[in-house]
């Protein structure tokens, strides 16, 4: 007897061009006590499916098919409201925005208890404290009256889990619960979910784009694409013997399965040298200082791909911004080909700006929405006076060929391009000035894995063809392992260790690096460990 049975679910949204089907004929069952993974890329309908179960879709959505929970038909708002919180609960991707900023965390957890069980304020508070302790919030008693903004991302997700589980629901829907978190924090949350499943038999549906995460804790998985379920089965079977072509593509694009793209060379000359670089900011309330980056010494060699990894707040982006001179270091020096970058001015500075280009994390936000792809790519060329405007536009088309964007996309604006296509425009724009050094700051973290694989392949090709030096900043160790020749690990603004990628991963010399490597979800490793 299954706990949940979804039969022929379809969700349609109205649009200017007629109805758009977000979910088509989706059916699956959830057995009590199992963890079902729902995996798919953006737009696959995995979140919409989850939300439909709890009636969280906007009013304009049309829902078809049947959803049966424990013999009850969830056909209308009243039926859904009867199970929300009590029987089925949900946690979400971005814990920060899913907590009311004007409510203390204790109240967040106590709230459903008062409504569903009619507890008094004091009883609910006592129970909330126990719940916060059960999701392993340290020093929970003193955190009861804290506000959401005073907690870290991982702590917020724990609060969200505690408040979702307050009334002991039997089913938890988890919509990308660890995507916005650092890897070490993600590992902790996944461990918590696994324990909840084992200790109290909590049934779970885990939505994720990351097969590594799914492989770590799920029993069964359904693979979605374009609103449809294209494959389902036990995780082991799907991973080791995928039936559908798309599933194979998805598995092949897992960072761990990517071919080795790094090819370390014999120590060539240094291109960029950081000497005891420090960046300190005054704190907002004045008085103290924030050491965003402190005492960093590193050297990036000509022609190599240098990886910088670290969790949020580790200072990796600050280092990048310091190198391109968007930030002036408060201490130490940045050297480019032996010259101090801080001393450059006039023509030398312009030349430096051309030689060092950057590609940014958010593919949409880093493009001007009013400019076409061709205009965006051409702009730096004629702005720098390297060619006339018409010649620059011509050159932009060549650059589009280079990043494998069809020329027919030349007149499209960012809104009409996908995330991966926008990122190609961003890369073409950076290459327009024929730079020597390309800094890629989390350029694939907003992209789907299959697109990530394409972008990485593209960067590898460009690197060889144009003799580029690349600084690749990422939180994803598995990608860095495949893509970079050497790696630097950052933590709390300091350089923890640096070395050749293969050596560093084989024998990390600090505990932090070891933790990071262990926490990085990897599909194959997870499968091996579960065997």
């Amino acid at each position, binding site marked *: 007897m299954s706990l949940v049975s979804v039969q022929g679910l379809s969700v349609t949204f109205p649009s200017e061009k007629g109805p758009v089907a977000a979910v088509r004929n989706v059916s699956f069952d959830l057995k009590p006590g199992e963890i079902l993974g729902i995996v798919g890329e953006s737009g696959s309908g995995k979140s919409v499916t989850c939300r439909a179960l709890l009636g969280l879709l906007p009013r304009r959505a049309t829902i078809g098919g049947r959803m049966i929970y424990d013999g009850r038909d969830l056909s209308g708002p009243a039926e859904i409201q009867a199970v*929300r919180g009590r029987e089925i609960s949900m946690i979400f991707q971005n814990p920060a*925005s899913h907590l009311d900023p004007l409510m203390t965390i204790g109240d967040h957890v106590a*709230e*459903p208890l008062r409504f569903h069980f009619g507890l008094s304020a004091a009883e609910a508070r006592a129970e909330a404290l126990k719940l916060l302790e059960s999701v392993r919030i340290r020093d929970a008693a003193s955190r009861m009256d804290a506000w959401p903004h005073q907690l870290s991302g991982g702590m917020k997700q724990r609060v969200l889990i505690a408040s979702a589980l307050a009334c002991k629901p039997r089913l938890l829907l988890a919509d990308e619960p660890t995507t916005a978190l650092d890897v070490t924090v993600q590992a902790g949350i996944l461990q918590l979910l696994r324990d909840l499943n084992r200790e109290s038999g909590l049934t779970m549906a885990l939505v994720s784009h990351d097969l590594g995460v799914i492989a770590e804790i799920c029993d069964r998985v359904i693979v979605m694409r374009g609103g449809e379920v294209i494959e389902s089965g036990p995780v082991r079977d799907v991973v080791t013997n995928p039936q559908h072509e798309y599933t194979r593509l998805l598995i092949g694009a897992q960072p761990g399965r990517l071919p080795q793209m790094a090819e370390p060379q014999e120590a060539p000359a240094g291109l960029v040298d950081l000497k005891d670089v420090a960046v300190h900011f005054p704190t907002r309330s004045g008085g103290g200082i924030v050491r965003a980056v402190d005492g960093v010494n590193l050297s990036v060699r000509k022609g190599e791909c240098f990886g910088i990894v670290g969790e949020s707040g580790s200072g990796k982006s600050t280092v990048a911004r310091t190198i391109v001179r968007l930030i002036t270091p408060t201490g130490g020096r940045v050297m480019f080909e032996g010259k101090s970058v801080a001393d450059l001015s006039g023509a030398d500075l312009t030349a430096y700006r051309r030689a060092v280009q950057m590609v940014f994390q958010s593919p949409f936000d880093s493009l001007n929405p009013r400019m076409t792809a061709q205009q965006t790519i051409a702009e730096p060329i004629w702005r720098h006076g390297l060619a006339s405007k018409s010649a620059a536009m011509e050159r932009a088309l060549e650059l589009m060929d280079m990043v494998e964007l069809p020329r027919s996309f030349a007149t499209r604006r960012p809104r009409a391009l996908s995330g991966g296509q926008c990122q190609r425009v961003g890369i073409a724009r950076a290459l327009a000035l024929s730079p020597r050094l390309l800094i890629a700051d989390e350029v694939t973290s907003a992209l789907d894995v299959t697109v990530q694989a394409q972008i990485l392949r593209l960067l590898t090709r460009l690197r060889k063809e144009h003799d580029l030096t690349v600084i690749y900043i990422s939180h994803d160790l598995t990608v860095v392992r495949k893509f970079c020749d050497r790696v630097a690990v950052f933590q709390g603004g300091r350089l923890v260790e640096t070395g050749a990628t293969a050596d560093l991963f084989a024998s990390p010399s600090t505990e932090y690096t070891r933790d990071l490597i262990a926490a990085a979800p990897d599909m194959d490793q997870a499968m091996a460990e579960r065997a």
Partner: protein
Amino acid sequence: MNSISFIGRRLLQIVPVLIGISLVSFFLIMMIPGDPVRMVLGPRATEEAVTAMRQEWGLDRPIWAQYLSYIGNTLTGDLGQSLKFRIPVLDLVLQYLPRTLFLVAYVLVIALPATILMAVIAARNEGRWPDQLIRVISILGMTIPVFWLGVLFARYFGVKLGWFPVSGYGDGFVEHLHHLFLPAVSTSLWLAPLLTRNLRAALIEQTEADYVAASRAKGLPEGYIFRRHILRNSVLPTLNLLGVMIAFLIGGSVVVEIVYAVPGLGALMVGSVLGRDYFVIQGLTLVYAIATVAITLAIDIFTAAIDPRTSE
């Protein structure tokens, strides 16, 4: 503890603002073309009389010394003499100020409940007829000029029906309420729609917020989610607009005070400008500026009380 240090920090920030205000109101008089002494004594005064008066008023001293004594006088409550009424400016302001404050408070008592009611109804029925109706009423309220409405109300309810007096302020609280009813209503008819539109937009935006979905997933009732989560988060932006509007009302009550002949600050300001009563203008400038600062401070403290993020 935290909130006390927040208020303390906020008060410290006001000091430079106050110094700026005093400089502006001081130089306001300096920038008036012509010699104030000659203006007082008339064009036919003798050179000796002018010199004597300059010395008596201290105008022969250096400018920083004049500024310092201006500050000293202001701090001790001496804003100078009204040239027209021949009484201290402070007395004059204190005589007119309560009426304007009463009017502003009256407007708020009418406009705020109406705003919350209309905005909540509109937001909860987004796109349906109650929302459309409130939108039409709002646009009418904002576009009809206050002075036109004032004249219309005064003629109809005041003269024709005789329900309300058309001028003055009355004696005692009840009479104030009676006298100021039409002015307060005509101002509210403009203020409430403005605030309603702002609050409605905030409510609709917050209804889409992620924490609302999370609250629904917990099975909380819609009415509770609206009151406890959505409304609280929506009030903050409107509160800031309200602060600006109250400051504007104190200074901008001119029109309605003239139309309804309410002897308030606005009426005093117009009279002083027309009568070139410079010290009153200077005093009023100071009062308006300080009132704006005080209201902004009050709104900030109020916001900090609701939103824990602001006081850190």
